[in-house]
């Protein structure tokens, strides 16, 4: 094995942080994506406007800038709200904005916008006949959504979700810049201290490659499950 000069355990801890960060961001992104896809498809003009402003802004601004805005600006905002609450209502409320929370919020916010596009397309791909049939059977709106829309939409959404997840995973590296001790941060510290960048960055790159390879297999498995019962054309 390669000699990591005692940084091995810390790198492993960093890898766990990276995975936690990625999974939590994915969860937030899926929720935001579903919400804003529903908003985009709704008849409410205000909701449509809000959702399309959200996706347009996110696609125009770099991830890192958004992350810094949220991390540095979020704390200032919380401080101001906290002061205001204390002065006016003497409520003692305070939240410390750490890099992990900022990272999850930013990445979730960014990929929520991309997921919204994926979900919107997938919802539109569900045949209207299916929805009409569900309504005719007396399904409530929620039931139609839960039992008819979601299972059929997932089939179309999965490839897009998979792509977004692969990009999301690599985006988590950025959170090291605002100070989160993920594996990139540990590797950077180690590389500087030991003056051997290749020794520390190449294993970290390999972990990212392994993570993408594993998730590719998992997405393929999910895709097969989602497509059970669909007759596919041959060649």
């Amino acid at each position: 094995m390669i000699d990591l000069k005692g940084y091995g355990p810390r790198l492993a801890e960093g890898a766990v942080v990276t995975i936690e960060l990625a999974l939590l961001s994915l969860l937030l992104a899926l929720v935001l994506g579903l919400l804003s896809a529903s908003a985009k498809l709704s008849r409410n003009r205000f909701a449509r406007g809000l959702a399309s402003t959200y996706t347009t802004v996110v696609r125009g601004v770099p991830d890192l800038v958004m992350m810094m805005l949220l991390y540095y600006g979020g704390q200032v905002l919380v401080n101001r709200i906290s002061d205001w609450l204390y002065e006016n209502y003497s409520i003692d409320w305070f939240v410390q904005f750490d890099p992990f929370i900022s990272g999850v919020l930013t990445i979730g916010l960014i990929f929520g916008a991309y997921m919204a596009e994926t979900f919107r397309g997938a919802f539109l791909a569900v045949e209207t006949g299916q929805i009409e049939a569900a309504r005719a059977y007396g399904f409530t709106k929620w039931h139609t959504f839960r039992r008819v829309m979601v299972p059929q939409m997932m089939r179309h959404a999965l490839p897009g979700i998979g792509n977004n997840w692969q990009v999301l995973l690599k985006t988590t590296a950025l959170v090291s810049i605002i100070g989160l001790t993920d594996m990139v941060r540990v590797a950077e510290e180690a590389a500087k201290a030991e003056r051997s960048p290749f020794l520390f960055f190449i294993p970290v790159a390999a972990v990212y490659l392994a993570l993408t390879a594993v998730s590719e297999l998992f997405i393929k498995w999910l895709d097969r499950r989602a497509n059970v019962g669909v007759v596919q054309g041959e060649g």
Partner: protein
Amino acid sequence: MPEFITAWLEGNDVFNAMTFLDYWQGLVNTVQLVFLSLIIGLVVAIPLAILRNSPHWWINKPIWLYTYLFRGTPLLIQLYIIYYGIAQVPGIQDTFWWNIFREPFYPALLAFTLNTAAYTTEIFRGAIAATPQGEIEAAKAYGMSWFLRLRRIVLPSAARRAVQAYANEVIFMLHASAIASVVTIVDLTGAARNIYSRHYAPFEAFIGVALIYMALTFLLVFAFRKLENHLLRHQQPAGG
């Protein structure tokens, strides 16, 4: 101008001439870095994409490996490896390359170029592979050589299929270039970080720079839509 904006502008001490100069310098650096890496990346990627479609494994497999490695790892790690790694190359400090790579601009340019070239190669590989067989057969029947076929038939039609994905790659690159600020380059994001730490004004500094990035993004989207219309003109309905 609405009154509250005028009032706010008069009361603010962040947006002064010095701040604008900072942003301007940052804009120049960002545009240089992104433009150069995209141009060099494109020039490298097109031959690689052609070779990537080669039937010989010893030609296409190494290129596959290159694109796989650069697309599968974060750009930030690639930047760190090149930026910190280049000084470790034995003997480089005695050659003239050291004068070039000592500046953070060039390691960043190299990292960005390699990264965008990998993505662009895959975009063009797909577009070239999707050339209808009939077009190639027709070109062969006309007696065109391999090179002429490539130049007149395969590449123009591949460019039409690739333009949309390539536009996304360009915008992705513009946004990814924000990480240049971590290796001490004062690009747009670097300028915003300086302004933030000088005035302790996170909203002004980062929302200001976000607006500049948005303007650049929409400019690119607009330019690529024009290009797309131009390339796909033959598919538009007649008249209109």
